[in-house]
């Protein structure tokens, strides 16, 4: 299978005020197979969010290269096939749920009729067909997350990037969102790369988990999690994998 996302010896420095620079990432190699879920795990300050932003094309790497669906990200133009989910839902308060979902399509300027159809479809996909006209402040945290998910899915992306997704939700709703994302990803044949500091979350969702070592951030190990889905976050297997991961992070 081809790699949907490939980072090749990616390095990044951030300039500091005193003319020095902070070495954030050093020679990071990551390969994520098509239709698989990869987690990037590490302590805070290990550069995992920076790595995700580089993959997303939001900031350029200083060295190395990122390939998306086999194309170097510099010449990658299919930005609609890659979407980004933030830590919080970032719904625009002045837009209804449907209008928030439509936001995902607006950059490309899709025709109005097509847009409306896609939005309705995607809201139905995440189980919010009845709440299209509700404003964000009228929705619960879980529902808001679904709207944000729908906004990311409305362009029918093949790659979904998530930065500590759902970390601000209650544990029970969070677990629902995990099921939801995996269901939809399977349905749409998406590749998912997400960043987290929560090893349990990584074990529940991911096929492969990459651990990063901090200062400068570099790949420590790649773990394959071959447990069958759905994975119960409270099961012994998940706990055992999580324990192994945590130990590898602490070494």
């Amino acid at each position, binding site marked *: 299978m081809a790699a949907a996302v490939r980072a090749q010896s990616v390095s990044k420095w951030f300039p500091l005020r005193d003319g020095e620079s902070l070495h954030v990432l050093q020679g990071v190699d990551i390969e994520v197979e098509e239709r698989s879920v990869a987690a990037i795990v590490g302590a805070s300050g290990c550069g995992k969010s920076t790595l995700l932003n580089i993959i*997303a094309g*939001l900031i350029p790497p200083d060295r190395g290269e990122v390939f998306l669906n086999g194309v170097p990200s510099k010449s990658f133009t299919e930005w609609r096939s890659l979407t980004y989910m933030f830590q919080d839902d970032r719904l*625009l308060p002045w837009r209804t749920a449907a209008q928030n979902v439509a936001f995902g399509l*607006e950059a490309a300027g899709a025709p109005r009729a097509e847009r409306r159809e896609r939005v309705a479809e995607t809201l139905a996909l995440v189980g919010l067909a009845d709440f299209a*006209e509700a*404003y964000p402040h*009228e*929705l619960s945290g879980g529902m808001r997350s679904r709207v944000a998910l729908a906004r990311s899915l409305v362009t029918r992306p093949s790659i979904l990037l998530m930065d500590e997704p759902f970390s601000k939700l209650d544990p*029970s709703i969070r677990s629902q969102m995990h*099921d939801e994302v995996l269901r939809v990803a399977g349905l749409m044949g998406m590749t998912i790369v997400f960043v987290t500091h929560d090893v349990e979350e990584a074990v529940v969702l991911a096929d492969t988990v990459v651990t990063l070592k901090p200062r400068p951030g570099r790949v420590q190990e790649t773990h394959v999690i071959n447990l069958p889905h759905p994975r119960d976050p409270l099961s012994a297997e998940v706990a055992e994998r999580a324990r192994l991961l945590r130990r590898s992070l602490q070494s």
Partner: protein
Amino acid sequence: MTAAPSSVPAVAGGAPKPAHKPARGPWLKIVAMRLGLLVLFLGLWQVASLGAPAFVLPGPARVWEAWSALVASPGFWRDLGLTFQRVLAGFALATVVGVAFGLLLGASETLGRFFEPLLTVINTVSSSIWAIFALIWFGLSDWTTIFVVFMTAMPLILTTVWQGSKTVNADYVELARAFRMSRAQILAKIYLPTILPLFFASARLAFGFGARVSLVAETLGASSGVGYRLRQAADLVQTDQVFAWTLTLVALMLALEFLVLKPLETRLFRWKKRAEID
């Protein structure tokens, strides 16, 4: 999925309704109170007018007569229309310039810091001084009034838009960038909606100020319009005419507020969560 029902708020069938509807009782009470105030005002006016000559304080009946005659007179709608046009033109220019420069100054910190003192200066100059300058520069023309309205309304709108564009949530801009939106799209889809409530409040204020100073400008530098008629009436000591025009203007501003601005505001800002005090 089992926890879902407990997390669903009281929004059913996708048609959210306002949580509160004003009860019938208080509403009637308010109408009664307003009517009472009106009667009290008219009564006091009547009593006061009895003790003063009509050229100082004409009574309500006399003003009513003057007003009826005024509305029926051929020049009434022309003067009203002219003044309204001038106010609207000045206000429209102020909106375009105020929003454009407000966004520009908001977008660039350097420009903002550079121009800040200029704005303070403009704000401190009285509208009457602008009227005098306008008279010197434009003479007896529409532009005198338009200029004064513009100079009064523009700094208000500019300052609000400028300050408002500083309150734009950086997270939303980042979101728009993640969706590959252009600068123009970010401006239209993130900045404008953020600024709109503030802009609306300042535009309402600016329009009110503009409408009021337009009369000052017209008394000095026009040969038509409501301000000019007011000065004419004053020169001829037609106090009832002054009252009649005043009545007209008050009625117009009230109509604008309740027939245009209030409904527009309700429609535009439906998305806002009402702060409810129990």
